[in-house]
Structures are given as C-alpha cells and as structure tokens.
C-alpha cells in the first residue's frame, strides 16, 4: 500500500530568516516555529487556519528548537538558542510570557525536550559545551537543576526522552505490583556517539554508549510506545546515515543498530510519529522521507514528501503562492 501525502494547509510564518524547527502542540491545535531571526512564533492552526497567537522575543541568537509541554501543565513552550539560553514560555490569561530563563551553559543550547508528563514538568537540554541539563519544575516558580557535565565531548546536539511506560508491560500479564518507572533519555553529540542516560537514586548516569556513526550525530529520537516489548531509537548524522537502534530485552542492555539508509548528504532531523511507528527523515538534500518497519523487520520508505504535492484545500493566506 502506498501512502499519499497531501497538503492541507500552508502557513506563512513571516520568519525573516531560516526556520529551524516547527512543532505542533499536543492536541494539534497550535504550531510553534523558531528561526535564525531570533523569534519564536505561535500560530493557531485549527480548522485549516493560521492565526498568529504570539511572536516571542527574548533570544539573542538563532533559536534552534522548540518543545511543547503536556497541556496538563498549561500552555507551555520551551525554546533553546545559540545565545546559550533556554527559555520556558507560558500562556497566562491569553498572553505569552517568559516563565523561566535558564543560562547555565557556556555555549549554544542546541536541543530541548520535555520528559513524559508522568514524571512531572522536566526539561532536558543539550549544549555545545558538551553538557546536558535536566530542569525540573518544583512549584512556586522554582526549578531544580541537575547537570551532566561532559556528556559529549565537543558538544551535544540532540536530546530525546524515553516513554515512561515500561517496555513490554502492555502485553505482559499484570503482576499487581507497582511498575518500575525509570527516567531515561537519549542524546547525540559531536563525539559521533549516541548515549543513553538513566536516573538512579536521584543521579543521572550514562547507561549505554552506542557507536555506529562516523561523524557528528545531528539528531536522536526515542520512539513513543504504548508499552510494546521493543524499545526503538533513531539517530542521524553528518555521515549521512540513519540508524535504528532496538532493544528487545526488558533490562534495556542490548541495543542493536540497523542501518535505515545511507543518504548522500548530512541528515539533519529524525522525527517519530506519535505512535512511534513511522519515522520522518530530512536531510541535506532537503528531501523529507517517511519510513516504516515491515513485519519481517525491514525498514522501507513509504513516502517521499514533496513540496506542495497534491494540495486539497485552498491556501488561505493572502500571500502569493510560491511558484
């Protein structure tokens, strides 16, 4: 079966420079973008529309990534920038303001990712200074900071949280005992490594070091899961390769890489669908491809998302169409 992908909306962001990230919120009603123009913009995209809700200024350098927190904490967005800052923005009474500004790193903040809501409001941030910070909201405008120094030599480019659910617990016989939740996340760095981290007794420790890339790891993504037995991580690199790492054993100790594809150019992003079954990849060739695993464990490209392919609805913005 071939998947068709078609455009249902085009958003004119009015960013004056490169756009580095675009993320929909949890319910799919809002869109956040960030750019080298140092702004973060939020749009309401319900029903095919695009209403600019906020134009957030506060960064003093290109903004690399944005991340939405779970809506149970309110409308909260995190952004990270070359200016060494992580800013957490919150919507109160209809207007967006800075909730928290974190400047604990000595270099560009490259990646932010919110942990599973089961663990509270906790943000992982990776920096070009090689360190990773974990920021936990503890209430009363207080944030607890834990830092992993020297996580990656030269720099950390990406962080991504593991789902909270214990692997395999969905299909296992209910034990009646309390689930053993462990906070875990994955990071990728300029040391060409993918690293897994886990929290033990309140301390963060390096759990696994995954070596396969021959150049900087540009992005990592831990696949969402409903509790199936396999844990999956995607990593992509300057070396043009995308690897899929899987772990079948419940202890989480044996990770096996599988080469998804070797692209001809750097691969910038890997992004999982919310089910964790489809992987989107974008690379230096500016193509976006979608990948899915077949029953026999082979990954296949199911779509090549071309720009403007098969638009089904009229473009609502007033700007002239592109070409």
């Amino acid at each position, binding site marked *: *079966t071939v*998947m*068709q*992908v*078609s*455009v249902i*909306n085009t*958003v*004119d962001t*009015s960013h004056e*420079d*490169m756009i*580095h*990230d*675009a993320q*929909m919120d949890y319910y*799919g009603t809002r*869109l956040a973008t960030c750019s080298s123009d140092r702004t973060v913009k939020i749009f309401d995209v319900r029903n095919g529309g695009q209403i600019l809700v906020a134009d957030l*200024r*506060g960064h*003093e*350098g*290109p903004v*690399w990534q944005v991340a939405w927190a779970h809506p149970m*904490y309110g409308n909260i967005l995190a952004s990270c920038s070359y200016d060494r800052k992580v800013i957490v923005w919150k919507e109160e009474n209809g207007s967006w303001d800075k909730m928290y500004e*974190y*400047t604990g790193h*000595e270099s*560009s903040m*490259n990646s932010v990712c919110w942990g599973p809501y089961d663990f*509270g*409001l906790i943000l992982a941030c990776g920096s*070009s*200074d090689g360190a990773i910070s974990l920021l936990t*909201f503890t*209430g*009363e405008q207080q944030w*607890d900071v834990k830092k992993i120094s020297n996580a990656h030599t*030269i*720099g950390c480019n990406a962080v991504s949280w593991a789902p909270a*659910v214990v692997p395999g617990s*969905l*299909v*296992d*016989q209910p034990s*009646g005992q*309390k689930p053993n*939740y462990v906070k875990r996340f994955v990071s990728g760095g300029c040391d060409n490594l993918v690293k897994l981290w886990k929290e033990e007794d309140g301390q963060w420790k390096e759990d696994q070091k995954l070596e396969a890339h021959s150049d900087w790891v540009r992005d990592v993504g831990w696949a969402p899961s*409903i509790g199936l*037995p396999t844990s999956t991580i995607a990593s992509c690199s*300057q070396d043009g390769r995308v690897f899929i790492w899987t772990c079948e054993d419940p202890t989480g100790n044996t990770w096996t890489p599988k080469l998804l594809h070797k692209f001809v150019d*750097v691969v910038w*992003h890997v992004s999982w*669908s919310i*089910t964790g079954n489809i992987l989107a990849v974008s690379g*230096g060739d*500016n193509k*976006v491809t979608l990948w899915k695993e077949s*029953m026999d464990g082979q990954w296949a490209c199911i779509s090549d998302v071309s720009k403007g392919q098969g638009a089904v609805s009229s473009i609502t913005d007033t700007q002239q169409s*592109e070409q």
Partner: protein
Amino acid sequence: MLCGSPVIITICVLPIRSDQLTDQGHYYDPREVAEPPASTRLSEHSRTPGLPLTSTNSLEYSKASGLSSSGYELSQYMNGADQIDVDSQSLLPPPPSCFDPEPVPVAPLKYAIPHAVVSFGTAGQLLRVSPGLSTKENQLEIHSLEVIIHHNRHLHKVDAMEFAHKRADASLRDVTQDSASAALLWKLLILLCRQNGVSVGSDIAELLLQNPSSEERPDSRAPMLIDFSEGPAPVTVPCVVGDDLLTGTATHSSAESSKVALDKYTSLLLAGRKKEALESAMNSELWGHALFLASKMDNRSYTTVLNRFTGQLTLSDPLQTLFQLLSGKTPAVSTCCGQEKWGDWKPHLAVMLANETADPNVQKKAVVAMGDTLASRGLLHAAHICYLTAYVHFGFFTQKTDRLVLLGSSHRWSFSKFAQNAAIQCTEVFEYSQNLGGKHFSIPTFQVYKLLYATRLLDWGLASQAYHYCELIGQSILRHNEPQLVLTGEVIKLADRLKHCEGQLSGESCGGAPCDPSWLQQLRLRLRGLQVTTPWGPSACHDRPRPQSSLPPL
C-alpha cells in the same frame, strides 16, 4: 550541498547582563586553545558601549554591515561537508558592539545553512518546512497522511462476514500446508457470525467435513483406511468399505458360515461355557452377541470385547476416535494427528465435536490435546480451530505456556510477526461474533492488541477510527473487573490526545473547553482506583514533591 543564496553567518559575542549571572553557577573560564574549542568564549568586556542590543537591532546591523568574517573558522567545525562560499564574503571589520578584539574560538552553529524541517502532528498530520532564508522561501506546509485503502472497517455483521470471506479466499491462495486450515478458521468465524455466536458441535463438524482441501491425499478422504498404523497392533482384520462391523457380515462371510458360528456360540452357552462362547463369538465377528453377553458378565470381559471390537478399526479411523472418546479416554489421534499416516485431522475433530460425552471435560481435554499436537507440528491454524472449539482462553504474549493469544499467529514468534493485522482482525471477528448473541462479550487479554491496532489506524491518518477503538477498549475495560493498569493508562493517553480531533469532526464542544465523554471520565476514575490500590507511580520515584499546579487532572 549549498543552496543558491549566500549564507549569512552571524557570529556575535553576546553582551552579558549582570542579572543573568545569578542563578546558574560559575562563569565560564576560557579554555586552552590547543583543545578543539567547544564553547563560545564570552568576553568579559563585551558590553555594548551605550547601545542597547536588542534582537532585531543586532540582526539588522549584521545584515547592513555585510557578512561576517568567520566563515573560515567555522569551516573547521563543519568537517568540510558544508561548503561555505568564502569568496562572496568580504572581510569587513566586525561591528564594534559585537566583537571581542582578539580572535575568539566560537561554538559552531547548529545549522549554518537552510535545512528541511519535519515533524508529526497529532492526528496524522505532517509538518514540513522547505528550507529558505526568507519569508518567501521558507514555506511551512501541513500535510495530511492519507492512504489508499479499499475497505473501511465498520464492524457490521455483513461487513465482518464479507471480510472473513475475503480472508478465507486469500488464505486459499497461499501454498503453505496450513493454509487450508487458515481458510477454514475464517470460515468458522463466518459460521459463528452467521449464527450470532452460537454454535453446536454438529455445525462445526459439518464445516470441518466440507471441501476437502487440495493437499489432502486422495485416500484420506474415506474415513475407513487400510490400517498401516505403527502402534501396537490389535487384532487387525483389513477393513473394506462396506463392512458392517456390528454383525460382522463381511464380504468374505457367507450366510452359511455365520449360521455355523451362531450354532457354535449357542452350543457353548448351552453348556454354560460363557468365556469360550464369548471368544467364539468374537472370532466369528458376532459382535452383537459378544457385546450383549459381555455386558452381562464382569467388567473385564466387557472391556475386552469392546477393545477387540474397536480394534477392528484402524487406529486412524474417526470411529475409533469416537469410541475412545466415549469410553472416557483421550483418543489416540489427539497425540498422533498431523502426521501423514493419520490422514486428515478434521474428521476426527468433527466426530469429537458432534457427539457429546458424559463428561464434557473429556471432550475438551481431547480436543485441546489435539490442538497441542497440531501446533507442535506447525499446523497453527488447525490447532487454533481446535482451541476455539474447545473454548481455550486467550492468554498473554509473554506467557509462552499459554496456548492462544491471537488467532492465526503464534506468540512464540517475534512480536512484530505475531501481532500482524490479520491476526488481530481474525481475533476481533471472533470476539465480535460472540457479541452478536446480545450478550456483552470481550476478551480481556485481547484489548491491548486493539489498542495496537488503533495506533496503526492513526498511522494511516484515520484518527477518528482510532478514537473509536479507544472508546470500545475503554468500555470493555470498564465492564471487566480485571485490573489492566498499563492498558488503561495508555488508552486514556491516546484518547485524550485524539479527542480534539474527534470534537472537531463532530462539531462538539463544551463551552469552548475540552470535554471528556463519560466513558473517558469513568476510565480516568478507574485508573485512579488502580493506582491507589497498587501503590506505584512516577510520583513515588520523584525526588521532589509534585507541584500543586501539576497534579494530573486524570
């Protein structure tokens, strides 16, 4: 690969406001240059003399002043993959407000050139940003994942039966040994649907005896077989089709010899020599008389006659199976079926199902044993037909001793192979058929696979159907009392996320605020209840107390 337009690289040593130094530890000390400089070196004396450096201000300044001179330095960090067009950049003196006079090792830009951005939305949306340096170029598109499918999955009875028909036909096109059984399994489900989940043994028996499959050997069609069993051979008299076992009027006997036999038998009885009379009757195949006489003698004699009588049949005769079953034993076929010598397993199962035994457990045990044997020979679908007719309960993927988890697949396989859509659909049709009788029926251990199926629907952009599955699963959970902690939590998560899409589609709202349908509210209560009785939870492994504002509104 570089796009056509020149790359603007802005390197700024940023002014530090004093209030920024407060919270987060020490101020950075410059590293030795010998090491690859990893960090931005933030100069102590970079505060702007008099000019407030706002974000837009700085950007405009950079643009106005031309391109920065740091292209060469950056290229060291970019590993040569990104070519920087140095020629087009004139080496202008840096803007005085931005730059430290001495050469400063700086952090590489995460992205120095435009790049395509991609991410997923909630309900089958895909965001794609075409790379570009300006508003006109950097297009953000929201795509919808559509899929070409040729059937919709409403669960109407007719649709379910039609679906099963298609599956049965598809199975027959396979060439595996088990494929005929696969088709039969689907046909069994069709039968169950048609009869609203109710079936009697004879219905299934009839189904089993229909349409012998092509791979069966011609001589196995007949229930009576030439005996070539390898087991301990009873008195084997070749059975020819048409034998009348009871009276033993075999073709080789003439009426005369039977009269002689009868006379002999009578005279022995008249002499009171019962045991000899019995032996004589058996030898002469006067089974009716032998059985009558033995029934009035001791148990041992009776058993002997019975055994001798049934021993006339080949071991692989379904009648043999029936006799053994009715005697309260697990028939030999249960442990021997599936082998070529035993012929087709279906007539044996048919005869067991069509005839009730005094103790239903005997029958169930025999059928289940048969299923086990078939399974051990790799005849998966055949085994599942046995299990289904014996009402074997559905178990767990991780419990390898469980017999049945999903119809049509084995939980000894890898999970992805095991949990294929066909197996989930097959099990679902069975579950559905049982619901047709009007009673609520659901398989508790199966619900997790419906959730998995729902996520697959979502992958294909069918958010509304995925949401509908969540509702079905939720209602099933609420009907059971079995604690399904993980499933309950995951269904709530998915339903919560999709409910807005559902609301959008149906135009519902509760005064603008998101409103949960009652089943979802009840499910949240159920989860809370489970969490309380099983002391657990992420809060238990928190270092810090959860803040008030972040209590989950479950």
